């Protein structure tokens, strides 16, 4: 899909690891392959040869194959993901299945003498999301989960939020990521993490706290494009649906009033001093609710206690501005930084028509991905650092079970380097979530720290000379078992094809070959098999000098290519 000024090199697809699919009919035309790769790079955490082959087996032309692939991905619960779940289950995580009351008892009220204990819930959620991005078959679903975590951002590593973060991820975001937005919003509004993050747990009558209400309208639903600044109700015109077309500060204040009393059973001194008021669960405290009528997006809300907030969420969820705001973000995430207005508009029609459907979000995603814009290969995205890291692992068969607090090698180092990219898991401090445009993610800092991570990833291995996380050597000798194929040219071409496909600027390919061959001939086989994994020191013979390491370094360099940074 990307055009390059300098032309492309012809890369041999020989030995691309597809042998298991070779007896099935698949359209292997370059065009079909390029389309499949483009879709999978865009809508998953990395196109592997087996993913491309599977895609190509799904129909007779690109449109049909795309539709079938999307249908399969959107029906995520029907997709058996037990292999990925088994990886998570065997990693020894302790908190992912704890109820909110258990999280509260163990990690908020429990013994705090072991300092990481409080942070285990967010740490393990972060670890599991990496495994899922790399190994889950539900790739599109996992990308939506990431999208909604950005949309409903909470600073996961804050003192109050870390111990309850599992609930936010598991009970609010994940069940609804391809479901119904209204249901997700309800779950988020009651998520203990969010109630702490945007202070609604402290929002009470006689001096409401606007923090949640403002971001609810500005970020989560209607969007700042329809914000009319001003502290007085008045001149926002109504739309044809009977709702004001936007909101003002006065709306924010009244929404805040509607949410007074939505709090957490956190043992507050004004609650009854009994254990059931210290469980960490959501709780509506009626004596903190502010009475009186409220006026929200042009509608009077009569005093109705807890019901007022439900009515507010209904108004916001059926609002046209919400549909546009969220569909623009979805299109920006999955199509391009400046998505076509027509696609945003048609997607938001689906969003609004289906606002009460249980599979509302899946329908909208189906609409976006099956659109002409995607079929015609429009748009381009720059991978954010998380997508970069996940793609590296996914495309090299990464065997990973990350732990934040179990030593430096390999995961402490990996996660620390990753955090330096500025994209650490659940670490964005502000409620707008991580940015989503290339202009923000191509700073020298982001790219430099990403390359620093990528330079290290292939060297990371389990302690005591255990296996490497990335299976670079193994994949190489499986695909090219014959040592005579281990020339710099063939190794570079095989890895280029696996990691970025055929569209690579020829001078970059030559640079990689130059590095891999050093002063040997590009067609002279290198000795990869002497003393793996590192190779042997040899001052006089560069074809045997640390060749397994050199292969890994070359693969690192492919991961740093501009071609690898796009999806």
């Amino acid at each position, binding site marked *: 899909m990307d055009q*390059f000024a300098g032309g492309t090199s012809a890369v041999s697809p020989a030995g691309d690891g597809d042998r298991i699919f070779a007896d099935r009919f698949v359209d292997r035309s370059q065009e079909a392959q390029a389309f499949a790769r483009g879709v999978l790079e865009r809508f998953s955490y990395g196109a592997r040869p087996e993913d491309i082959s599977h895609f190509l087996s799904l129909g007779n032309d690109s449109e049909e194959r795309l539709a079938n692939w999307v249908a399969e991905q959107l029906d995520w619960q029907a997709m058996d993901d037990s292999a990925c779940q088994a990886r998570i289950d065997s990693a020894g995580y302790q908190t992912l299945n704890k109820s909110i009351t258990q999280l509260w008892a163990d990690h908020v009220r429990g013994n705090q003498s072991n300092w990481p204990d409080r942070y285990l819930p967010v740490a393990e959620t972060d670890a599991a999301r990496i495994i899922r991005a790399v190994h889950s078959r539900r790739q599109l679903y996992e990308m939506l989960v990431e999208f909604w975590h950005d949309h409903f951002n909470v600073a996961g590593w804050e003192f109050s939020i870390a111990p309850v973060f599992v609930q936010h991820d598991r009970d609010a975001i994940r069940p609804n990521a391809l479901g119904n937005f209204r249901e997700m919003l309800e779950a988020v509004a009651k998520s203990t993490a969010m109630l702490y993050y945007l202070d609604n747990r402290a929002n009470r009558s006689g001096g409401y706290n606007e*923090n949640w209400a403002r971001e609810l309208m500005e970020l989560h639903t209607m969007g700042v494009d329809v914000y009319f600044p001003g502290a007085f109700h008045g001149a926002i015109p109504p739309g044809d649906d009977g709702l004001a077309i936007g909101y003002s500060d006065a709306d924010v204040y009244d929404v805040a009033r509607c949410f007074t009393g939505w709090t957490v059973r956190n043992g507050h001194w004004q609650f009854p001093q009994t254990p059931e008021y210290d469980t960490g669960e959501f709780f509506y405290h009626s004596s903190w609710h502010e009475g009186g009528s409220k006026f929200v997006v042009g509608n009077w809300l009569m005093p109705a206690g807890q019901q007022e907030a439900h009515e507010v969420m209904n108004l916001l969820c059926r609002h046209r501005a919400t549909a546009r705001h969220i569909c623009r973000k979805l299109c920006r995430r999955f199509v391009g930084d400046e998505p076509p207005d027509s696609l945003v508009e048609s997607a938001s029609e689906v969003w609004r028509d289906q606002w009460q459907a249980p599979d509302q979000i899946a329908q909208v995603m189906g609409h976006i991905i099956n659109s002409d814009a995607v079929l015609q290969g429009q748009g381009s995205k720059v991978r954010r650092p998380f997508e970069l890291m996940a793609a590296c692992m996914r495309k090299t068969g990464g065997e990973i079970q990350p732990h934040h607090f179990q030593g430096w090698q390999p995961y402490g180092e990996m996660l620390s380097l990753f955090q330096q990219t500025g994209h650490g898991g659940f670490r964005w401090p502000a409620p707008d979530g991580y940015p989503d445009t290339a202009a923000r993610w191509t700073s020298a800092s*982001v790219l430099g*720290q990403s390359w*620093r991570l990528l330079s290290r990833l292939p060297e990371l291995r389990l302690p005591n000379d255990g296996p490497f996380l990335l299976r670079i050597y193994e994949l190489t000798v499986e695909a090219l078992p014959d040592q005579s194929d281990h020339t710099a040219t063939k190794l570079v071409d095989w890895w280029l094809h696996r990691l970025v496909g055929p569209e690579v600027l020829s001078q970059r390919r030559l640079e990689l070959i130059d590095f891999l061959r050093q002063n040997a001939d590009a067609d002279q086989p290198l000795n990869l098999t002497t003393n793996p994994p590192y190779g042997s020191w040899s001052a006089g013979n560069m074809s045997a000098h640390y060749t397994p390491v050199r292969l890994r370094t070359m693969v690192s360099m492919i991961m740093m290519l501009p071609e690898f940074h796009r999806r």
Partner: protein
Amino acid sequence: MKRRTFLKSCCAAAAAGALPGMAWVNPLLAGTRSGQDVLVYLYLRGGIDGLHLVVPYAGAERVAYESRRGNMLIPEERLRPISAEWALHPRAGGGPGDPVSSPPRWLQRLWLEDRLAIIQGAGMPTHLSRSHFDAQAWMDLGTPGNKNTPQGWLTRYLQSAGPLPPASLSHAFGFASTQPLALMGANQAFTVSNAQEFRVDGFHWSWQETNPDLPGHQGAHHRIQNLWQAGNSSLEQAGRLAAEALADMREMDFAAYQPEGGAQYPDSALGTQMRNLAQLIKSDAGVVVATLDYGGWDTHEGQGIPNPGNPNHFDFYGNLVQGLSEAVDAFYTDLAQSSQGNLMNRVSVVMLSEFGRNVTGNQSGGTDHGYGNVMLALGGRVNGGFHGQFPGLDKGSLFEDQDLHTTVDYRQVLAEALVRRLNLPAPALEQVFPTLGSYSPVGVFQT
């Protein structure tokens, strides 16, 4: 000469061994020194409650403050007075255990030395937004009311500045991870979150560097530039800049840097970044503008009331104030007492935020979003003291019955820094702040 070739010629000086941490001080400029002024744009993200930092101490505004401030009121005896009618939050001049009568430190010390300017009523008089993200974007882009401006205000300054002294590294540094909006579209700005760790050093040692003892051996890290050499997409251009920044900054040893004048940078992201910036300025790296962020000011809940003299009293806002005060004070001291002379005579720091906060606190011990605010400036060529006009806390003066009003357009202060300190011709302000209208300096900076 290309920056890189130039740098290579500097490495001889590095081998000769100059000051620790300043291995490659530009030998061509050493002694002559560029003398270029530097503007530091330090953004207090989240909307600092300026009324909690610069507090009415006596007089009519104190009366109005006491009647309106609710549970966010700070008693007089907990403040550090800096004039007959105004006081600073105690943590701007001392630690949590220091009584207000203890010797002034940090911002209060700089105030006493006339190096700190406080601009009252600063903000965006032409536009209102109580949204963090819109208000910040408007200010960083320099176009209130419009967040779709493709370039930040500092980017447009660099484009209209005319010839600047050649930069061995860059004219612009953004101390951030993702690209700062004020430098959006600046194709020469180095954005570096952590200068010390800004290096590609993860390859196996056998291929990290070129080994000169092995004939034909070529290392990996310097090849990144070659991999990004071709292509003209914006990604490829950004990648080339990143590769160049990596190669150039690799020569600097940030860890070994020794601050001067006894400056003690706090052990925080801001402290480290200001320390790195001081080193870059001393090294004549070419810095003309730099951006930094210091966040956490969105204190809707548990903002805190200071209790000076009580070291165990937790004060969220006070901790932030002290973190800021210590960092800028260390930066000031380090540069002002440099062996190269008082470098603060050519360095100015402006501190600002997207909006102030509601005058009356809420029921959760915090303050919600407001409008007018204070803005601070610091430097050897700053006119210390009060500037602008306090908008007033009486009912008639409040904005929408609830917030401090604005009396000074923040752009006038920045414009004045550009004109008086960076020698930007005033007519060029039209490019930097296209909707500012006429330039009317506030008097914060000396010419």
